[in-house]
C-alpha cells in the first residue's frame, strides 16, 4: 500500500515537472557588446524575459575568459566629502564595483547591462580588439543556458 502511494506521488510529480517544462520562461539576449581590452574585459547586453514569471542571470562563460563575474557599479554622492581645490568647489563622488550573485530580469520585462550599472567582468585569456566577436553562454535560473555573442566595438 505504502509503495503504491509512493508510485502515485512520483507520477504526479512527473506530470508537474512536464507542465513546468512547457511554461519555461523564454529569455533572450540582444545587443551584447564589449570594448577593446587587455587583461580585464566587460560585456554589456539587454536581457529580455517574455515569461509571466521573473528570472535571474546567475552565471556566464566564454572560451575567451578564465572567469566571468556578475558585477554592479554603484556611485555614492558624498556631499560631506565635497571639498575645494584652487578655490573651486570639487564634486564629491565615489564609484565602486561589487560582485552580485544574480541579476534579476522581471516578468515580461527587460534588464539592461550598461555602463555605470550591471555588467559582466571578464578575466580575459587574450586581448580584445575592435571587430572581435566574443562567444558567450549566459546561465539563467529558470531559462537555463542561452547562447549569444558580443561584438567588440571600436573606441572611436
Amino acid at each position, binding site marked *: 500500500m505504502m509503495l503504491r502511494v509512493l508510485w502515485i506521488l512520483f507520477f504526479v510529480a512527473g506530470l508537474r515537472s512536464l507542465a513546468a517544462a512547457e511554461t519555461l520562461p523564454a529569455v533572450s539576449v540582444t545587443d551584447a557588446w564589449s570594448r577593446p*581590452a587587455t587583461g580585464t574585459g566587460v560585456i554589456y547586453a539587454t536581457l529580455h524575459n517574455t515569461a509571466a514569471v521573473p528570472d535571474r542571470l546567475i552565471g556566464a562563460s566564454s572560451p575567451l575568459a578564465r572567469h566571468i563575474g556578475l558585477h554592479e557599479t554603484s556611485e555614492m554622492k558624498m556631499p560631506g566629502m565635497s571639498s575645494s581645490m584652487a578655490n*573651486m568647489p570639487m564634486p564629491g563622488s*565615489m564609484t565602486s564595483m561589487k560582485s552580485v550573485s544574480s541579476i534579476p530580469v522581471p516578468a515580461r520585462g527587460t534588464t539592461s547591462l550598461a555602463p555605470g550599472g550591471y555588467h559582466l567582468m571578464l578575466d580575459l585569456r587574450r586581448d580584445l580588439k575592435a571587430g572581435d566577436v566574443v562567444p558567450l553562454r549566459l546561465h539563467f535560473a529558470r531559462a537555463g543556458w542561452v547562447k549569444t555573442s558580443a561584438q567588440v566595438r571600436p*573606441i*572611436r
Partner: protein
Amino acid sequence: MFFGYTHYPDVCPTVLVHLAKAVHSPTTSAAESVVFITVDPDRDSPEVLKRYVRLFDPQSIGLTGSLKSLEPVYAVYHVVRQAVPVNHSPSDYSIVHGTSLYYAGRDGSMKGFGSWEDDTAELTEDLKRFQ
C-alpha cells in the same frame, strides 16, 4: 586627468573612451592630452598601464609608482581610495575611488573639474572652456 585602475572594466574605460573622443574632437585644440593615474599601483605596473591607456588613445599618459610615492599625489588631488575584497579572496579586490575629472594647465594649475558621467559633448565643451 583622471584617477582609476585597469581592473575596473566599467567606469574607468567609459570615461577614457569619452576623453579620447573629446581630446581628438576637431573643435578642441590638439594640445590636450589625457593623463590616467592609477589607484591600484600593486597591479598596474608601467607595462600594464601603458598597454591599457594606449587602447583608448596612443597619446595618453599612464602614471604609476609605489603606493608610498602616490599617496601624496592622492592627497593633493583629494582622491579617496579604499581597497575592498571581492569573493573573500586576498588577491581579488576592487577599489572604491573618487571619480572627479581634473582639467589642468601645462603648468599644473587647476582650471576646473568634471564628472565621470560627462559624455563626449560635455567633455569637449569643458576642454574648450578650460584650455
